[in-house]
């Protein structure tokens, strides 16, 4: 328990760093929010007025204090493009991003872990070569380009899947909100027509993200399985006459999974970034496309809120990964 609290406290510096960097990026550096707000035709006076209104004429420490206070009140400013508080916008759009990212991650794990195991077990065989090609190709693919290719093949050529335009087709209405995840909400409400529509829209973007995240997971699974399979306890297990499946799944995999879970931290860093690009390709109404729209409109507050949200999410995800690692590995519990 003490270790758990210690780990929770350990993520505080990262959170503080994230808050400071976001502040520095938006307030201290030359990019001027007041000029954006005032528009291109504004006079020097009206810019000064807006500066005073936004508190940008104050000394920096005071601005920083006000920023922290506003942050703890959940005040991330207003979006000029939607006219809503940024926090409301982000909260409304976050489930869409989360559903997409998690589905992408599941696709990736579902393919990469078995592939990595097979490649390690049959090292140097066909499946190992397939794994190597996928791993090298996976890190080279621009995620926005794979998304477009999939759209071309599965929507335009084969017409198997719907147009890349958001979370539902134009005729379906969203299910009553419980979690904000359409697949879960539709299942709760029993609206299977909606569920099918949401799933059909989700397949391509989730596959795009999955293909992207597959490479690091498969590589580490293979390497980690190879290391474990060479260990003496595996030789002992084999010598004791245990079946191949028992040795690989019960003995090797359980030990090999730890580095895989640790790597998920890096995978999430990639996924959250790639998410922005995939959301743009598929007109997915998540926080990434929200930030991209705000960037184009030079709307500062949403971008800032987005960066902060993503960074906080990432810190929390890393914390979760650490917890899972502790739960699975007694050494991690005792070690620190």
């Amino acid at each position: 328990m003490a270790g758990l609290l210690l780990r929770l406290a350990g993520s505080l510096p990262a959170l503080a760093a994230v808050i400071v960097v976001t502040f520095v990026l938006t307030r201290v550096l030359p990019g001027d929010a007041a000029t954006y707000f005032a528009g291109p035709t504004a006079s020097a006076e009206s810019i000064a007025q807006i500066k005073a209104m936004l508190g940008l004429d104050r000394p920096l420490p005071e601005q920083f204090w006000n920023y922290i206070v506003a942050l703890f009140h959940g005040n991330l400013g207003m979006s000029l493009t939607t006219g809503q508080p940024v926090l409301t916008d982000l909260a409304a759009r976050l489930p869409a991003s989360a559903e997409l990212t998690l589905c992408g991650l599941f696709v990736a794990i579902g393919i990469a872990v078995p592939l990595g195991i097979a490649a390690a077990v049959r090292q140097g065989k066909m499946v190992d070569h397939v794994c190597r090609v996928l791993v090298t190709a996976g890190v080279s693919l621009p995620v926005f380009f794979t998304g477009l290719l999939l759209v071309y093949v599965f929507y335009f050529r084969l017409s198997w899947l719907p147009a890349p335009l958001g979370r539902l087709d134009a005729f379906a209405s969203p299910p009553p909100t419980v979690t904000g995840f359409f697949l879960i909400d539709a299942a709760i409400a029993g609206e299977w027509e909606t569920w099918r529509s949401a799933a059909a829209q989700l397949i391509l973007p989730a596959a795009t993200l999955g293909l992207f995240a597959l490479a690091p997971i498969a590589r580490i699974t293979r390497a980690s399985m190879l290391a474990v399979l060479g260990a003496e306890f595996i030789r002992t297990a084999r010598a004791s006459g245990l079946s191949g499946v028992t040795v690989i799944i019960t003995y090797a995999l359980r030990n090999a999974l730890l580095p895989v879970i640790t790597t998920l931290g890096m995978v999430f860093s990639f996924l959250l970034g790639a998410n922005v690009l995939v959301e743009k390709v598929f007109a997915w109404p998540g926080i990434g496309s929200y930030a991209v729209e705000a960037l184009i409109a030079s709307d500062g507050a949403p971008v800032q809120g987005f960066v902060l949200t993503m960074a906080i999410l990432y810190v929390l995800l890393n914390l979760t990964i650490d917890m899972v690692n502790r739960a699975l590995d007694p050494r991690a519990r005792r070690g620190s």
Partner: protein
Amino acid sequence: MKGLAAPLRHARFVVTENPVTGFALALFILFIVAAVFGPSLAPHDPLASNTAQALQPPSGQYWFGTDQLGRDIFSRALVAARLDIGIAAASVALVFAMGGFAGLASGFFGGWTDALVGRLSDTIMAFPLFVLAMAIVAALGNTVPNIVLATAIINFPLYVRVARAETTTRRDAGFVDAARVAGHRDMGVLLGQVMPNIMPLMVVQMSLTMGYAILNAAGLSFIGLGVRPPTPEWGIMVAEGASFIVSGEWWVALFPGATLMVAVFCFNLLGDGLRDIVDPRRRT
């Protein structure tokens, strides 16, 4: 020359033993030629629009077809090589200098230098990297130097880690002590003795991150940060072609995207090959 013979033999062995590395090397030369001579090799003016020829599929005259303004996509993709590879090379050179030196100093001096560099790396790593790059370009302004800087910053922790680890293992080596006894100061030992020894691994690191740097810059341009139209750049060209995918004009996005993909693939393969030559232990 005797000292060089063995590594060269090893290099020839790696290239011939793994034909993929040789292939990547050939592609690399092709991309460098495109980057250097692209503008004079392009069959058409990459910026000249010709609405009469808009959205033509690939043909003998327009190898990659034409875009919505009738511009030749082949010429644009060719000319874009200089900008895309240039951005990536500049950012990798920048982070090589910044991260390499920070890692060297951090591993060599330890103490507060190490703590400072470590905290700086941790701060960068606290963000999803592409999101941090977006934030930096959005805050500093939408220009090419800022993309270079952002791409360099997000790679900083990686370079620090490699340089620091390699420096730490050599800090107490005999040749360092010898240099000290000979009267060299800290900086002299650091730059004159330790740095040349970690150089090969840092160069491998550079070639391994080139591909990622190209992807990152193209991704930023794809969402409208960084390079602006009508400048030919692979990310922007894919973004412009995106809306034509759903109506079946596949070539507008496909060719620039495929060029980008092949470039990244080539740099990644080359990086792996170079690592095999310099550091055979890490072969997987």
